[in-house]
């Protein structure tokens, strides 16, 4: 049987990817970029699951990734619709401009 890499390396890669996504979501003010960050994060989570599935020799992890993809797709659908709708109304996609309510 051939071995790939230590599992922890997969996790490290996923963690870096996830945090990059998080940084994107946090640092960028552009709503679409935030959404892109979320996608990166979700994809990183998928990576963890796939690695784990391999680690445990189970299919559950892979099944979960399918669900993650479904979620990602629907989130993007709703999200982009919402962004579009907001942009139509206000003309901006800068996240911080949406501060009608605060305090």
């Amino acid at each position, binding site marked *: 049987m051939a071995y790939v890499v230590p*599992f922890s390396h997969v996790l490290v890669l996923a963690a870096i990817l996830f945090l990059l996504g998080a940084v994107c979501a946090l640092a960028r003010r552009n709503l679409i970029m935030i959404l892109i960050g979320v996608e990166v994060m979700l994809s990183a989570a998928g990576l963890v699951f796939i690695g784990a599935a391999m680690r445990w020799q189970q299919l559950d992890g892979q099944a979960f990734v399918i669900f993650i993809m479904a979620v990602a797709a629907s989130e993007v659908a709703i999200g982009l619709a919402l962004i579009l709708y907001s942009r139509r109304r206000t003309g901006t996609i800068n996240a911080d401009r949406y501060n009608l309510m605060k305090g």
Partner: protein
Amino acid sequence: MNIYAVIFYILGVLIVAFTVMAITRRNLMHAIVFLVGSFIATAVLFYLLGAPFLAIMEVVIYAGAIMVLFLFIVMMLEIEPEERDWWAGLRPWLWPLSLMGISLAVIFVYLIFASGSSHTLPMVMASPLAFGRFLFEKYWLGVEIASYLLFVALVGALYLGRGEETGG
């Protein structure tokens, strides 16, 4: 260190590099293109990690559907790249990056020094058929919910996308 490992590390570097490029682009178009690259590399990685079906799905859904959707929207919105000076562009990154650094350090420490995750991964492959059977046997309910999820997303997106009206 065998060939798989080499591929893994190359892919890893590729993914991170693409992602870093993607998230730092001012131009959304560029960002999305880089991201597609990142996703395709991820798909290959999935394949490497024994999930051929998911690899295809990754390409189709992420790199394909989702990113195309993004592109489409971006083009529709005609968003011009943000013009900011050097410092103003950097400032928002400070906090997230430093927090990320700390978190990452903690995770590293835990993963490397204090965990039992040093288990090396064996090379196996899940056949799409077995995977499909497994999915519908064990997680049929999950699939159902996922379908509702997509349905709700559809309805919601439709509702939000519809022009402003006062409903009935």
